[in-house]
Each structure stands twice: as C-alpha cells, then as structure tokens.
C-alpha cells in the first residue's frame, strides 16, 4: 500500500510530465497544428 507523499507526488508528476514532454517533442517535430498529436493524452475524439 502506497502511503507516503513521495508516491503521490511521483504518481501525479509522471502523469503530467511524461505526456507533456512527449507533447513538446511532437510539437517541435511537427508544429502546433496537428490534431491527435498527443501520444498519451485524453482526447475524447481519438478513442
């Protein structure tokens, strides 16, 4: 059972920072125009 605040911070940080890093990387490669560019994200229309 994960109890410490470190695990909580890590859990949230991974969810925020990893997609954000991939997002920025993709934008750097393709520009800020393409829909569906988010590799691990929450776009409701790309289900």
């Amino acid at each position, binding site marked *: 059972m994960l109890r410490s605040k470190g*695990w909580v*911070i890590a*859990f949230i940080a991974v969810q*925020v920072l990893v997609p954000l890093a991939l997002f920025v990387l993709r934008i750097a490669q393709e520009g800020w125009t393409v829909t569906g560019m988010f590799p691990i*994200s929450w776009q*409701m229309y790309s289900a």
Partner: protein
Amino acid sequence: MSDPLRLFRYAFALIACVKAVDLAIRLPDRTDLALPLLAAWLVGTALLVTPRWKVGAFIIAAAGSAIVVAGPLFNHHLYLMVLVGVILSMFDDRWHVFLLRAQLTIVYAFAAVTKINGTYLSGDVLARATERSVLLGDVAIPMWLLVIASAGAIIVEGGLAVALWFRHTRLPAAALGIAFHVPLVLATTYGWSGGAQLFVYSAMALALYLPFWVDSDEVVERAVGHLKGRSLPERPRLS
C-alpha cells in the same frame, strides 16, 4: 469510506460493465488472450461492489494494462480506468479523494490543452464527428456554430479542471459538466462501439465529480498538510 466514494466505486463498476461489452466485441479480433482478459475484467468489475473492492480495482488495473499490451487496444478512457484502478488498489485510503480529484483535473487540463490547435479550432474535428453521428448525421450544422462549439469545449474543459475544486463554483461546474458531456455523447455517437467509448469517457469524467463532494475543505487541507509534512488527526471511517 464515505458515501460519495462508495457511490463512485459503484459507478466505476457500472462503467466497467459497459466497457466489458465493448471489449467483448473488439478484443477477440486482436488477441488469443481475449477470453482470459475479459474474464479477469469481469471478475474485477464484480469485486468492485463487494468488501473486496480493492482487489477488484487491482484486477481492473492489471487486466486493463494487459489489454493495452496484448490487444494492443489503447483507448484514453481505458488508460483512465487503469489509473483509477491503481489509485483505489495501491494507494492508502487517505489519498483516494485527493488523487481521484487530481486525476480528473489532469484529464480535463490535457483535454483542453490538446485541443488548442488550428485543426480543432477550425471546427473540422467536430464537423467530422457530427457527420457520422447517428443523431446529427443528416443535419446540416453551420460551420460557425461548430467553431463556437469547439472553442466552447476548450473553455469548458479548462474551466472544469479548476472550478470543481472550490466550494462556491462546484455545483455550477458540475451542472456545466453534465450539460457538456451528455449532449457530447448524444451528438457524436456513431454506432455501438463509438458510442460506448464516448459514453465510457464521459461517464468516467462525471463519476469523478463524486470525490469532490467528500468533506471538501478538509480533503484539501489534509492533502496540503501531508504534502508539507503535517498531519491532521485521522477522521473516523464509515466503512
């Protein structure tokens, strides 16, 4: 566990049932492991409404992860269900409310940010979604309306990411969220599979409103206290 969290768990189980039907249709074409994975998913779903709900949440998380890998069948809402399973099964009870709230904020924030691009704001994405819609497929929707709806979706999702955290804005935000998700599913559903997936996303989002009704201010105070290294006295647990 307080009542809103119990309700959330039941809602999660119900949504997992709908997802099970979707998986039963799509998974057999993708992997030989469809049957055991589906069986595990259903066992986890059933356990969610029992005192062994943590085991159920763990099985949902494990089966969902395996479906993503073995399928491979990745859906954003499936990923969300896996994460909720992880929160409920692997984190201590005192973190559940805070983490579930944070999860919804992350979902809405990324949903809003990823839509801020020319393609989405032009209305093309909504146009494609409504063109194949069961309800609106034959309706000619003016492009200007789709542009406004696209911008509105970004504003609504971005606003919901924040507004649910505050007591004074929580109820209007919840009403806005319902008014946003229900028409979204109705307007863009394009058959069983697409409809089920849109339903699961929206239903998960709406179910995640429930943790915002658990002793709201105490949850924030307690989480901030924990993060700063201070602890409030444990409150009695209802179950």
